[in-house]
């Protein structure tokens, strides 16, 4: 182990990837398409969401290109409307919502709790198929003319005023929603019922707590989106008017139903990422997470409070002033647990022994950018300023800071951290650190100017804008091109590492956690014998003793 890194690889001249692992256990397409192994399903998800991420990313590129000039120069207004709609739908439903839970969560949770698989492997596979069907429908919609309602499907625009593929898109989201419900259901049952002996709730890694909280949201919130989409489809086909004021319906009813899911959805998206950060910060400081209980409970608090703040998306829509007050107050309450986490992670660094490998760089990026994103959320949760800032680029900047600067960075952090466990190979450190820095710089150049644009009043979803906004838009697009490079690099070097990366061994990071006690890549059944958990989470002293025992027995 050299001074500036904790990486500890086996002797490369003799090290080999274990012949028998979950990747080599069976061969052939059917063994993958009919698998029950949570790790294979996680791999299927990883490939799928990467595919959708790049489609969504390409659409983002188109948006930024169009916004280089104040006029609609690159594409017709209708096309632009379709581009940002599809960008939102794909990124939210087909990338962010499944990202950490369906890939890292699926892969790690059974191992982290000492189980051989999730409780319901067939439901897990079904979940992936539902995701693929929903995604295929989304691609079909894009290929046959697209949809231009905005990802928020605002009525009556979506029900009566556009003639694009609203029904197919709603169905695609509906089906993908059930994918999410089944993943969450599986996680809840697994975490409750399949912990190994000795694995009490407070010995669980914080990653498990975070995914558990997100699963509660998935299970309780997504069905409401489902029924809302059904109502949209019915209103478009039968034309009743449950959202149409001319027929006695109320478009605001749609807003309430839609945001009742879509606000918890953002916590579904961020909580698993926060779980990743807990693991990474702990490992690269060699320390138990500061305030374990606080971090665990704050995840659950975010999940619970997250259900009670939805109307902060509706402050200007004519809801009663008093309702706005209540939702604003609750929004302030939901902001606090996130602040608690940031401080706890920061203080995990205190008196630690810190190294700066790629996962840690991404984690630092997360902490800074999520702080900015989260604080700007308070700007928006404050009713008075929300009036000026809502529906402008301030909102766009806010959610990209938390979702891209936050969640996506956490996802990349986790992918790099667990890559050696997943594939048995290490990724190349120098270029990955470079990519992390490029991403961070590109991100800030892209999205920080958008806060200013929002304060200036530039509305969102505009293809054309007054000329005085151009300078900041050009700046933002320039940043986006840097950001694109930052996201392209991991695809390239991670693929490279599959063949040429160093053999990682069981525990290249010297990390605690049951998953690091297995081989890399793991066996299909994870453990030959169910382990017994006899130490606390993040117990580095236990790990040291473990390593001493190994050295003693080998030597």
């Amino acid at each position, binding site marked *: 182990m050299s001074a500036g890194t*904790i990486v500890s690889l086996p002797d490369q001249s003799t090290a080999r990837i274990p012949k028998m692992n979950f990747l080599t256990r069976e061969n052939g397409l059917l063994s993958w398409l009919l698998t029950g192994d949570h790790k294979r399903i996680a791999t299927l998800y990883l490939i799928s969401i990467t595919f959708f991420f790049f489609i969504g990313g390409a659409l983002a590129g188109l948006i930024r290109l169009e916004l280089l000039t104040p006029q609609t120069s690159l594409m017709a207004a*209708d096309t632009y*409307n379709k581009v940002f709609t599809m960008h939102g739908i794909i990124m939210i439903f087909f990338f962010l919502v499944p990202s950490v839970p369906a890939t890292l969560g699926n892969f790690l949770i059974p191992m982290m709790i000492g189980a051989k698989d999730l409780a319901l492997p067939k439901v897990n596979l079904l979940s992936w198929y539902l995701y693929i069907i929903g995604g295929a429908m989304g691609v079909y919609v894009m290929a046959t003319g697209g949809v*231009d309602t*905005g990802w*928020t499907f*605002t009525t*009556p*625009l979506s029900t*009566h005023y556009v003639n694009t593929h609203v029904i197919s898109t709603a169905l695609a989201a509906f089906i993908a929603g059930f994918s999410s419900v089944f993943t969450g259901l599986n996680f809840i049952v697994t975490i409750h019922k399949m912990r190994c002996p000795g694995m009490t709730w407070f010995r669980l890694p914080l990653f498990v707590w975070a995914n558990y909280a997100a699963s509660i949201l998935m299970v309780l919130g997504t069905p409401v989106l489902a029924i809302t989409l059904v109502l949209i489809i019915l209103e478009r086909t039968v034309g009743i008017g449950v959202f149409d*004021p*001319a027929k*006695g319906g*109320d*478009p605001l009813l749609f807003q309430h139903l839609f945001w009742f899911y879509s606000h918890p959805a953002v916590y579904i998206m961020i909580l698993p990422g926060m779980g990743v950060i807990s693991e990474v910060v702990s490992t690269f400081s*060699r*320390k*138990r997470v*500061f*305030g*374990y209980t606080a971090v665990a409970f704050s995840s659950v608090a975010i999940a619970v409070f997250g259900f009670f703040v939805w109307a902060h998306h509706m402050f*200007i829509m*004519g809801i009663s*002033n008093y309702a706005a007050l209540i939702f604003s*107050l609750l929004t*302030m309450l939901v902001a*606090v647990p996130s*602040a608690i986490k*940031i*401080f706890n992670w*920061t*203080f995990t*660094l205190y*008196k*630690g*022994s*810190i*190294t700066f490998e790629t996962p840690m760089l991404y984690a630092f990026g997360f*902490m*800074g950018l999520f702080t900015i994103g989260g*604080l*700007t959320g*308070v*700007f928006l*949760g404050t*009713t*008075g*300023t929300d*009036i*000026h800032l809502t529906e402008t680029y301030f909102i766009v900047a806010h959610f990209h800071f938390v979702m891209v600067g936050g969640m996506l960075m956490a996802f990349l952090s986790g992918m790099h951290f667990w890559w050696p466990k997943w594939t048995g190979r290490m990724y190349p450190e120098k270029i990955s650190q470079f990519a992390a820095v490029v991403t961070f710089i590109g991100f800030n150049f892209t999205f920080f100017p958008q806060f*200013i644009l929002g304060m*200036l*009043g530039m509305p969102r*979803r505009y293809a*054309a804008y*007054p000329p*005085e*906004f151009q*300078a900041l838009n050009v700046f933002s697009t320039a940043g986006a091109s840097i950001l694109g490079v930052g996201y392209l690099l991991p695809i390239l070097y991670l693929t490279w590492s599959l063949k040429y990366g160093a053999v990682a061994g069981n525990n290249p990071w010297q990390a605690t956690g049951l998953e690091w006690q297995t081989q890399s890549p793991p066996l299909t059944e994870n453990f030959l014998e169910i382990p017994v958990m006899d130490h606390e989470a993040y117990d580095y*002293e236990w790990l040291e003793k473990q390593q001493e025992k190994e050295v003693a027995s080998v030597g």
Partner: protein
Amino acid sequence: MDHISPVLWQFLQKWLTHFALFPPEASTVAPQSDALFFFMVLVSLIGLTIVVLLIVGFSILYSKKRHPQAVQIEGSTLLEATWTIIPLGLFLVMFVWGALLYFRIYTPPANAMNIYVVGKQWMWKAEHPGGQHEINALHVPMGRPVQVTLISQDVFHSFSIPAFRVKREAIPGRYTTVWFEATAVGTYHLFCTQYCGTDHSQMIGDVIVMTPEDYKKWLESSTSGNSLAQDGERLFASLSCSACHNTRPDARGPSLANVYNARLTLSSGQTVTVDDAYLRDAILDPSQHTTQGYAPIMPTYRGQISEEGVIALVEYIKNLDSDYRVQQTLNTTDLLPETEGGSPRRPAGAKAPAAEKEVKP
């Protein structure tokens, strides 16, 4: 803004506006909104600086080279309490301040003059009570509270004037209101900030703030000849409303004279205040808005009347005095109250109608 030197503030604001980094402050509420905004920016900067300094500081002090052995620390209840209570406290301050600002922006003063704005795909139609109609433009006087009553003809739109720091959704099916008092002459952007279809980006207009004298001149030159109330009067007749709503003793409908802002008891026993929203609902959904003592026989006019038509009727009823007749000789510019005492119903400059009693059939 009395806490910061006015000179410094003006300089900062001018500089920021000139470099298109900050919108102009052109209404009474804009500085208040900006004060809260800058407070939040300050708190955020301090918070971010603390977090970044801690991260960077700890990373340097406790890097593996300098601090090879980590010290396991479970936590600190004191620290947890600190970083729970202080952020919560700050957020609650913002909440209260923001709530006061919110109520202020969405509670129009009693003496605000009213302008109706109908949003439709993809334009804003402004209707001044004096009968001036504008598309994608809004002329307002400086120094006078203006209430905008909004409604959409089709989908959700959002009426946004960044320079005034106000924004309100225009919703199909109900009125929403927002008010402002412009403080600086000039032309400012009017945006639609709720995605509404193909030409959402083209739904941009201008808000033109004029001195009261210039505004008067504009009113005179842009009138279509009839005030909104007069348009409403004509509609009232052509839709046969006067068949039931008249001053005859055996009238089948309640008299509408002086009904605006009055308290009304409905046949369900409920008591309501007759405002714009009530009048609109009563025209379009009469069965739920039957005055006590009258039979529920009023037909609905939904589908027979446009939003502009409803606005004209509402405006007519607002100005209705006991003689049931809007002054034909009413000079439209008189609808601009010269003094603060003008009420929305009766313009301060209008003559009392007592002298001219024309009985309508």
